[in-house]
């Protein structure tokens, strides 16, 4: 084990340029993937923020008594899709309209707005079909005049979400594949640069495992270093965007960041294993 570590670190000191080159290559391919991931993450966060605002308003006929309203609200709250129910009286509706639409506040000075039952749905139940279904159920209450939920808007939102999802997956896979290929090629170069050494090792009787081990450790170390560097670059990139474009962005959670670095290490180890294995088979 000591020798393995010594050998792997010797690779760093014997060929500092090649080592630096492969770490930077790994870092930049993971960085590209990381930036892409960050964009995808932020689009998702933004869409989720919009989705949270999906709300169904059931406008109630004038003069409906508060008791039947409360009973209906309790009923609705028990629907499996429903997250929260909120009764908005005529006065509250007016107050809300005044604050939300300040430029029209004079219009609402003396007007009368209908009371409503506002329903929010649980995450995962905010797609157009479910929203329409719940709306239909709300409409079946005799005292409900009208149900609104911004149908056109919701359909658009979902189309956008689906496009973003599919494009994200395809691009993500492409980026990941490119990263793996580039990293694999880099590692293969490192192995080939030591082809003489490997063939002499075989000649004097080193076992395959013994030959492979330092390369695996080297790949692991390069993967970790490249991953950390990529993480740092991504973080820096995000801060620059935040700072100069006044764009509020979401960063990876610590678990996601750690997963990225571990992925780098895994690619390093697997890439080295494949490269050395391919090389050894020929000897």
């Amino acid at each position, binding site marked *: 084990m000591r*020798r393995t570590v010594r050998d792997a670190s010797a690779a760093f000191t014997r060929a500092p340029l090649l080592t630096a080159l492969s770490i930077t290559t790994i870092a930049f391919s993971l960085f590209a993937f990381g930036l892409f991931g960050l964009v995808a993450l932020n689009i998702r966060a933004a869409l989720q923020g919009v989705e949270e605002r999906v709300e169904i308003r059931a406008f109630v006929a004038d003069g409906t008594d508060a008791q039947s309203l409360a009973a209906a609200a309790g009923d609705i709250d028990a629907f499996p899709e429903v997250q929260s129910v909120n009764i908005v009286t005529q006065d509250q509706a007016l107050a809300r309209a005044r604050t939300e639409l300040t430029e029209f506040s004079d219009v609402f000075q003396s007007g009368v707005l209908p009371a409503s039952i506002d329903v929010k749905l649980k995450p995962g139940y905010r797609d157009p079909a479910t929203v329409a279904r719940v709306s239909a159920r709300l409409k079946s209450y005799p005292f409900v005049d009208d149900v609104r939920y911004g149908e056109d808007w919701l359909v658009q939102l979902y189309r956008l979400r689906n496009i973003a999802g599919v494009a994200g997956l395809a691009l993500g896979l492409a980026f990941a594949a490119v990263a793996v290929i580039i990293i694999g090629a880099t590692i293969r170069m490192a192995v080939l640069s030591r082809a*003489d050494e490997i063939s002499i090792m075989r*000649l004097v009787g080193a076992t395959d495992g013994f030959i492979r081990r330092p390369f695996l450790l080297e790949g692991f170390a390069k993967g970790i270093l490249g991953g950390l560097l990529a993480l740092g670059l991504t973080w820096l990139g995000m801060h620059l965007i935040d700072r100069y474009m006044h764009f509020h962005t979401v960063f990876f959670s610590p678990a996601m960041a750690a997963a990225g670095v571990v992925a780098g290490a895994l690619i390093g180890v697997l890439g080295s294993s494949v490269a050395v294995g391919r090389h050894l088979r020929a000897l």
Partner: protein
Amino acid sequence: MTAAEAVGVLRFDRVTKEYPRSGLALHEVSFRVAKGEFVFLTGPSGAGKSTILRLAYFAERPTSGLVRVSGVNSEHASRREISKLRRRLGIVFQDFRLLEDRTAEENVGFALEVTGVPRAQIGPKVSRVLTQVGLAAKATAFPRELSGGEQQRVAIARALVNDPFVLIADEPTGNLDERATRGVFQLLREINAAGTAIIMATHDLDLVRHADYRTLELNRGQIVFDSAESPEPAA
């Protein structure tokens, strides 16, 4: 069969080697090498000398027939067994095959390091063989700082450091001038005198003639003359 032949270190039985593109390199070759024996392999270029040596250290497997070296057999040997066997073989080439970025002693020590010999034992073993090949004074020189003859001595030291029972040498003097050739050959004779069997492929007929060792002559993949069987050279 003499007593020496009975204790074989290496044995080929009707070994045929065929390459997909260039065809038959060896055809039904059979011979044995006894413990401590010195054998020259001669013959024109392309006769199959290097092929025999590669088969002997299991860099290749025969197309048919059987190669046996110290109990390891070409039909069943695993990669691991081959690795273990090579630790008891010494292998030397025309082109030395030293690592350019390591000193003479590091090149020799490399063979011990990568076979898991404890670090504390490496130093003494390395200086013993470097002294044996006459290069104790150049232990810290890099290959580019050594003459061809000296580089070959380092390669021989590396081959000897694991105390091999047989030394396999493919034209070890092929890149050397006459003086260096004589020096390296003298070294090989001493190694053989100390008990290590040697199989050496060579083009140098002077060397073969002046040394009284067994000679196997190959032509087109077949043994056409074995001095152990008939005293007179063929044709």
